[in-house]
């Protein structure tokens, strides 16, 4: 191994200190050797080839890298991969099942909640964290829950509508 992350089969290069971690990602246990300084977002994107989680600002401001960490939304650009050892992560790749989209994904499409799409995975996961706790949020509750995620394209109004659309569908499904 000459690089920062590898599936366990590869041996580390001489002098490269690594640590073996096991992380549950979208329900699957993944065991990888990582350099201790590797950021979690980079492990997901480059190591595990799940590029739906985006790196936007590298300073926990923009939220493009938001994933769920044991169900809580966190910014994976400022967390080390080793900190996720033994924890459970959910990324945008885990939102849809093989056959159907999550209501949040449907809501974003129905209400035109995205333009360039770069902030969208983080937005959807921040929204999921909210809706998992509260499936009937007010507009203000949605705006507050998404206030750690920046979008430069939409002006947020349609994102709010997308989350309201999803909440409605999730309520209907839970009845």
């Amino acid at each position, binding site marked *: 191994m*000459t*690089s*920062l992350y590898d599936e366990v089969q590869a041996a580390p*290069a001489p*002098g490269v200190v690594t640590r073996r971690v096991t992380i549950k990602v979208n329900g699957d246990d993944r065991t990888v050797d990582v*350099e201790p*300084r*590797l950021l979690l977002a980079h492990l997901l*994107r*480059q190591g595990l*080839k*799940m*590029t*739906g*989680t*985006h*790196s*936007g*600002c*590298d*300073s926990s*401001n*923009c939220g*493009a890298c938001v994933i769920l960490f044991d169900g809580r939304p966190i910014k994976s650009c400022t967390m080390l991969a080793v900190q996720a050892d033994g924890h459970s992560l959910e*990324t*945008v*790749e885990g*939102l*849809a099942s093989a056959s159907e*989209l999550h209501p949040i*994904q449907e809501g*974003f*499409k*129905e209400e*035109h909640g*995205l*333009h*360039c*799409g*770069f*902030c*969208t995975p983080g937005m*959807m996961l921040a929204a999921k964290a909210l809706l998992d706790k509260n499936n009937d949020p007010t507009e203000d509750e*949605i*705006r*507050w829950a*998404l*206030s750690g*995620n*920046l*979008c*430069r*394209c*939409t*002006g*947020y*109004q*349609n*994102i*709010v509508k997308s989350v309201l659309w999803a909440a409605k569908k999730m309520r209907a499904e839970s009845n």
Partner: protein
Amino acid sequence: MALDEIKIGGLGASRRRVEDNRFIRGKGNYIDDIVLPGMLHMEILRSPVAHARIKSIDVSKAYDIPGVRLVLTGEMMAARNLAWMPTLSYDTQAVLATDKVRFQGQEVAAVIADDPYIAKDACEAIVVEYEQLPAIVNPMQAMAADSVVIRDDKENQPGNKVFDWEIGDKAATDKAFADADVISKMELHYPRSHPSPMETCGSIADFDRATGKLTVYMTSQAPHIVRAAVAMVAELPEHMIRIVSPDLGGGFGNKVPIYPGYVVSILASILTERPVKWIEDKTGNLISTGFGRDVYLQGELALRKDGKMLGMRMKTISDHGAFYADAQPSKFKIGLMHSTFACYDIPAAHLESVGYYTNKAPGGVAYRCSFRVTEAMFFQERMVHAAANDLGMDQAEFRRMNLVKDDMFPYRTAFGFLTDSGQYGKCLDIGMKAIGYSTYKAEQAEARKRGKLLGIGISTMTEPLGAGNSREYDILGIKMFDSAELRVHMTGKAILRTGAMNQGQGHQTTWAQIVAHELGIPADDVTVEEGDTDTAPFGMGTYASRSTPVAGAAVAMVSRKIRAKARKIAAHLLEVSEEDIEWELGRFYVRSNKERGVTIQDCALAAYSNMPDGMEPGLENNAYYDPPNLTWPFAAYFVKVEVDAETGVWDVLKVVAVDDCGVRINPMVVEGQIMGGLTEAYAMASMQYQTYDSEGNCIGANYMDYLLPTAWETPGFELHEVVTPCPHHPIGAKGVGECATVAGPAAFVNAVIDAVGHTGVRNIDMPMMPNRVYEALTTGKDISGMPPVKMGD
């Protein structure tokens, strides 16, 4: 039976977006998602200082780090004649610095390594010795006689001046001012702002030694211009260069210029014979790439005492940073600044513009606007607001009196533009009704008694979009036409390619709707591709709201060429002469017997299987569209605010937007564009700006210092629609992507000024941060220029 246009996803359908299917699954394909076999990673070392001579660069310690493959410096670029590159405005820009660094963040060296972390480590191991020079951080310093010359690399460079330009009729304007009853003046500063798309810039250069082919994946809004520039700068044959723009995570003008990182990655790939990926970090993007605005705007209006505008003159002093890297049509040194006051009937006007180099990041780009029209319309609407107050006239009525009337089109503006259509008064009426204008004055007076400060701001404008016709518009000599290529397969499905480049506007969805409208092929049956110069026809790319006015027109025109050929096929299939054939959506029929007809899909199959004798097989064509004129959408924005007198905090109570962008292809997408634009307008009015301290350190180099509004601060928007079709565009569309960013800021500022106007305050420059509003309120004085930067002890 003709098809139902909405059902097939034609014009006017709020068709859900095709591109969303991949984005909502996290399956977009942005530059950093692309991985090529054997790919190396590049990191750029940037200058920590704004102005300095480079005394030495020692890269030896970088090579000591395992995994480092190559370190490039300016000297190595110079040996290959690549240390400098041309900008899109006939200036030169350093690729990697050789003699001096001229702004903080300038590219000094690059490391190519096995891994991005290693490349970053190695950058820190490079030792550069700088001899610091005084930093020039604004045009006033730059124009001083004793100022240090920033561009001493250029021969015959007169001080720090970039250009001196004027347009309009000076004598007629002077006369208008001599005849005026009232002269109203305004001085403003439009602060520097960075477009800051969520995704930064990046590239992957892949030079294949065996074939000689260079493929570059890059974040470009205009990939064909890049191909032409690479052919000229790197002296590679154009057919051996392939530029691919993948999904772009926003652009807003920031991804129009050609940046040093792209060029360095290309050379790195040629030297290493490996693909080389460069992904800019957020700070690199904010401190080195194309900014917008940074202009001082001064001017005055000559008025008759009844309120009629007689003349306008304006002077701009613009800051271009270290290199004149504006992206704009070459005839116009300060973009389309002279479109100011285009919606008003004003007989005489004159504009003088001077540009200066400073030790700041190079630019400026058309940040979500059609080349400096944001500054033009901001000045216009702040000037109009002040003039109405000076005359003691109502804001709306003063505008109504001077707006170009419906029956005056086509209307030649004092600067020579030809506006061709609009219903300005109607838009004003709709907005006034929606914001509650008729009862507002009483409401404001009543609220004041309770210590509440209410304000309404109006901004009306027409914006020149769709550059542009080949007589006047070119970039580096290349005319600003655009293109489309349409191939209909034998089963009636089709692929469309254009020379535009989507970055969130939804071209994959909306271009197919134009094809559906013209041919009756359901939009779902049309694949849209853009951004790959090996397959897409040559086009000038997407910026300045030019996609729909130019490339969109090309899509309509190529569809019509296809229909013309299909008509011949239909005549053959129906065994009648072409003159006896009629068209309705999706179908040709015999005039004398409407039941006898063939669908467009029948014609497509026949084009491959049963064409008339002598006809060339197949059903495909292309169109290059050279627009006869610019398009002129109109917008009227109304903002209502409440200012807290004790803190200077202002809350937005209501935003009403009335947009006339002509025919709407996809109303859902149009409204999305307007809301996005309004948010950037709110951002600029309230918090979003970049400044520099006296040493040239950029303040606003990350998202902790460069404030962008979140869902929490951003107000809601109420949208209204007026449709006046463009008379010369094939489907009557005018473009809309930028109207709200252009005209919006003045509406917010006018609203706050209206709320605090009783104190005598005439202007608060953006950003209207609470402390600035509070200071204005408590002192009754104007707040001008950038917020001051506190320097360390």
